[in-house]
C-alpha cells in the first residue's frame, strides 16, 4: 500500500468567540484505518471532526484531502466533496423525520444524481446488510434508537465514501445496542475500505479503532500510525 495519508490536518486554530476550540491541532488519517478521537467533553474533538470534514472552516491551518486543500475550496466544492467522498453518522436527530428509512438511506445517492429506483435498490441492500431491512418503509419516528442508528450507518456508507466521520454514534444507545451498531458499522466500513474517524468518549467504542488520538484543550496527542 502506498503510504500517503488520506486526510491531513496541520496546525488548526479555531475560536468560537472567546473560547479557543482548536489550538494548533494536527492529525493524519491513513486510508482504511479507524481512528478514535478521544478526550473530555469540550476538548474540541467534535470541532476537529467538523474541520476535517470541511463542515467548519478553521481560522488558520490547513486540511488536505488527497493533497487537495479543503480550506481553500469554495463552499459548493466542499459540499460536493462531502457528497461524494465522505459519509456521516451523528449521535441522534440525523434522520430526516418525514422521509422513510429507505428514502433516508437513498438520500446521499440521489443528491449525487442517482435515479430514484437505482438509489432505492442500493439503499435496500445496505439496510439488509445492517440487519434493518424490515424497517425500510417506516419513518424514523417509528423505529427504535438502535435501528435508527443502523439506518444512519447505512446512509453514511451507501455512497461508498473514502472517509466516514462518526460523532458519538452510540452516544444515545445502551451498551448492547451500542455494541451491535459498532460491530456492524466497523465491519461494513472495513469491507468497503473506508477510513473511519470516530469521535467518542467511550473506551469500549474506541476499542473498535486501530489507534486513537487524544484531544485535550484543543491540541491533539496522536498515537503513531503503526504500519
Amino acid at each position, binding site marked *: 500500500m502506498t503510504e500517503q495519508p488520506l486526510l491531513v490536518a496541520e496546525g488548526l486554530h479555531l475560536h*468560537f468567540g472567546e473560547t479557543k476550540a482548536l489550538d494548533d491541532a494536527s492529525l493524519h488519517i491513513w486510508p482504511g484505518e479507524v481512528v478514535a478521537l478521544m478526550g473530555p467533553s469540550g476538548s474540541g474533538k*467534535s*470541532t476537529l471532526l*467538523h474541520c476535517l*470534514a470541511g*463542515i*467548519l472552516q478553521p481560522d488558520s491551518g490547513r486540511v488536505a484531502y488527497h493533497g487537495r486543500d479543503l480550506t481553500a475550496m469554495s463552499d*459548493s466544492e466542499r*459540499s*460536493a*466533496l*462531502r*457528497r*461524494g467522498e*465522505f*459519509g*456521516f453518522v*451523528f*449521535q441522534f*436527530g*440525523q*434522520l*430526516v*423525520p*418525514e*422521509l422513510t428509512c429507505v*428514502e433516508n438511506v437513498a*438520500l*446521499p445517492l*440521489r*443528491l449525487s444524481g442517482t435515479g*430514484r429506483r437505482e438509489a432505492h435498490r442500493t439503499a435496500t441492500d445496505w439496510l439488509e446488510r445492517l440487519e434493518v431491512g424490515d424497517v425500510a418503509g417506516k*419513518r424514523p419516528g417509528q423505529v427504535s434508537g438502535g435501528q435508527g442508528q443502523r439506518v444512519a450507518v447505512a*446512509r*453514511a456508507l451507501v455512497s461508498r465514501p473514502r472517509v466516514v466521520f462518526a*460523532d458519538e454514534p452510540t452516544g444515545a444507545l445502551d451498551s448492547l445496542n451500542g455494541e451491535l451498531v459498532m460491530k456492524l458499522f466497523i465491519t461494513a466500513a472495513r469491507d468497503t475500505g473506508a477510513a473511519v474517524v470516530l469521535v467518542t468518549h467511550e473506551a469500549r467504542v474506541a476499542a473498535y479503532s486501530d489507534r486513537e488520538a487524544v484531544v485535550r484543550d484543543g491540541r491533539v496527542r496522536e498515537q503513531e500510525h503503526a504500519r
Partner: protein
Amino acid sequence: MTGRGRLRRWIFELGLGARMSVAGGRAGWARLTLIAAGTGVGVALLLCLAALPAALEASGDRESARTEAVDSEREVPRGDGTMLIGIATTTFHDDAIHGRMLQPEGSRPPVPPGVTALPKPGEMLVSPALRRLIEDNPVLGRRWEARIVGTIGDDGLTGPADLAFYLGTDTLTEDTGRRIEAFGHSYTEEGVSPVMLLLTAVGMVVLLTPVMVFMASAVRFGGEARDKRLAALRLVGSDAGMTRRIAAGETLAGAVLGLLVGTVLAAGAALLAHRYATGPLSFYLSDMRPVPVLAALIALGVPAVAVLVTLSAMRRVVVEPLGVVRLSTTVRRRLWWRLILPVAGIALLWPLTNGLGEGPGSGATEFQAAAGVALLLIGLALLLPWLVDAVVHRLGGGGVAWELAVRRLQLDSGTAVRAVSGIAVSVAGVIAVQGLVSAIETQVTGSGGTPAAVARQQVLPQTDLPVGTWTTALRETPGVQTVETVRIARAGRDGSEVTVRIGSCAALEGYAALPGCTDGDAFAVNVATTGVFTVEGGGQWTAPASTRDVVPTDSLLDYGPLLLLTPAAAADAFPAGEARYTLTLDGRTPNALEQLRNTAARMDPQALVYGAGNDAVASALRTIRQGLLAGTIAMLVLIGASMVVNVAEQMRERRRVLAVLVAFGTRRRTMSGSVLLQAAVPVLLGMTLAIGFGSGLAAILMAAVQAPVTVDWFGIGTTSGMAALVVLGTTAAALPTLLRLTRPGNLRSE
C-alpha cells in the same frame, strides 16, 4: 372544592399561563409579539368597521344640514328671510364637487352651516380640500369667474376631503333658482339600490372572513414550543384540565395585548383617514367613535375566540407528561362535515340566481346573500385542509427537494394549511366580488365603449341662453370635435307622456342604434310607431309611415316612451323648447373634459355636463374595488408574514436535521427548493380551490344581478399573481433563516 376555591384556582392557572407566555425568554416574547400583532391587526380592522356607522352618520348629518330645505308641497313667498339658490355641483376628473349659487333676497337670508358671511356676487367660499385642489390644478380655478374670499368651516363639510363651494350671485331668477327659507333637510330614506347593498354585504364578509381566519391562525403561532412547555407542566403533575386552562391563559395574554395593539392601530388608521382619505371615506377624528355595543363585542369576543381556538387546537393534541402526542397524524381528515357549510351556503345563495327583485333592498335578501357568502367562504377554509391532505398523500416521486417538501406536508400539513386558508378565503372572495363588480360595470357603462379616443358628452343648460351662443362657445372649447343640438319636447299618446328628442342622426345615435338613418326619419322606443301624438303646448304630430321601432342604449333602458325625430320628420309641430348639446371630445387633448366643464360652468354654473356612463355608480364601484384591493393586499401581506413566521419556526425546530443535511453535502439549492415547494404546494391547492369557489360564487352573484355570467380572468390572474408573490416572498424571507440555521455550527448545539 368550593366554588370560590375553584375560581381562585382557575384564575391562578390562567395567570400562570399568562406569565409563562412571557417567561420563555426571547422566543416567548417573539411569540407573544406575533400573536399580539396578528390579533392587533384584526382588531384594528374590526374597530374601524365598528366606527364606520357612527362616522357615516355624522357626515350624513352634516350633509343634510347643509342641504337646502325645499318643500315641494308649498310655494315659499319672497321675503326678507328668503334666498334663491342654484345647484352648481360639478365634477373634476372623477371627484364630485358640491356647489351652490347663493342669492339673498332680503336682509336676513338663511346661512348654510360652516359659513359666517355669505359671499357677494363675484365671490366664493371653498372648502379647504377644494382650495388645495384648485391650487394644484389651475384649470379648475378658471371654472368660476369668482374670487375666493374664505373657506367653509368643518360644520358645513362632510369630511376633511369634502370638495364644496358657495358662489355668490345676482343672476338667479325664480325660473332658474329655487327659493328657500332655511338650510337643513331631513331626508326620507333614499333607498340604496339592492345591487349596492348586496355588494356592500358581500364585501364586508369577504374582508372579515380572512381576518377571522388570520386571527385564528395567529393565536396558534409557536404552538409547538408551547406544547413542549405544557408537557413539562404535566410532568410535575398538572391534569389535562389545568393544562388546557394554562394554555388558554397564554393565549389570553396575547389576545389582550392584541386588543391594545389593535386600539392603537385603529387610532392610527383614524388619523391617516383624517389626513389622507378621499371621497366618502373621509371623516373628522371626532366622527370616528366605534359603536359602543360593537366595541364591547370586540373587546370580549376577540379574547373569547382566541381561547376557543386554542382549546379546539388542543383537542387534536394530547399533552402527556413525556411529550406531545398528536392525534391528527393517525386520524385522517374526514370530508363529510366539512361539506355542511359550503352546501348550506349554496342552498342560501341558490334562490338568488332568479334575480334580486325590484325596489329598494328589504334587507332580508341581502342578509341571506351575506350569510350564504360567509358560509361558503368559511366552508372553503374548512375544505382546504382535507383537500391538501388528500392530494399530498397521493403525491410522490420527483427530485430530492420535491420529496422533502411532499413528505414534510404528508407528516404535518396543518401548519401550512392554516396560513394558506387565509389566502384562499380572501382570493375566493376577491374573485367573487371583482367578478360581480365588473359585471355591474359592463351593465352600467355598456359594452364596446371606447372612452380613450372619442368621449361623448352631453351638456344640459338650466338657463335660457340662445342656442347659437352655446354652440359657438362649445365649438371654441379646445378638444371639442363636434357639437350637435338636441331639442327636447313632450308629447302625449293614449294618456301617457312621451319624451321627444329632435336632432340630427348623429346626435340621436347616442340614444339608440339607428341603422340607415337619414333626415326625415323617425324612431320610436316603447311606443307605437303609427298614429297621432298630441304635442304639449298645443298641436298634433302624426308619425310618418317610415317610423321604426328601435332598441335604446343601456343607459336609457328605463326612460319610458321616447320618440327620436330628425328635424325634417318633426316638421315644425314641436315648439322650440329647451335644448341640450351632444358633443364628442378628442380624448387626446389634455383636460378636454375639464375645459368643456369650464366652458359650461362659465356660461351657466348650473349647467349639467354628463357622459354616457353612469358616473355615480361607476365611482361607487371604483371605491369598492379599490377598498377591496387595498384590503386584499393588506391581507396577503399579513398572511405572507405569518407564513414566514411558520416556516422560520419550523426550520428552527428542524435545525439539527438541516445541519446534518448540509454536513453530507446537500446543496443549498435543494434545500431552498424544498422550502419553496413546501409553501407553493398548499398555496397552489388553495388557489385552485379558491378560484373554483370564487368563480362559482361570482357566477351566482352575477345571476343575482342579472348580468351575463362570465369568468373574471383578470381577477383570477391578478390574485394568482399576488399569491405567487406571497409564496416567493415567503421563501425569500425565509432564506436568511435557512442560511443561518444551516451553518454547520448548529451540529454542536444540543
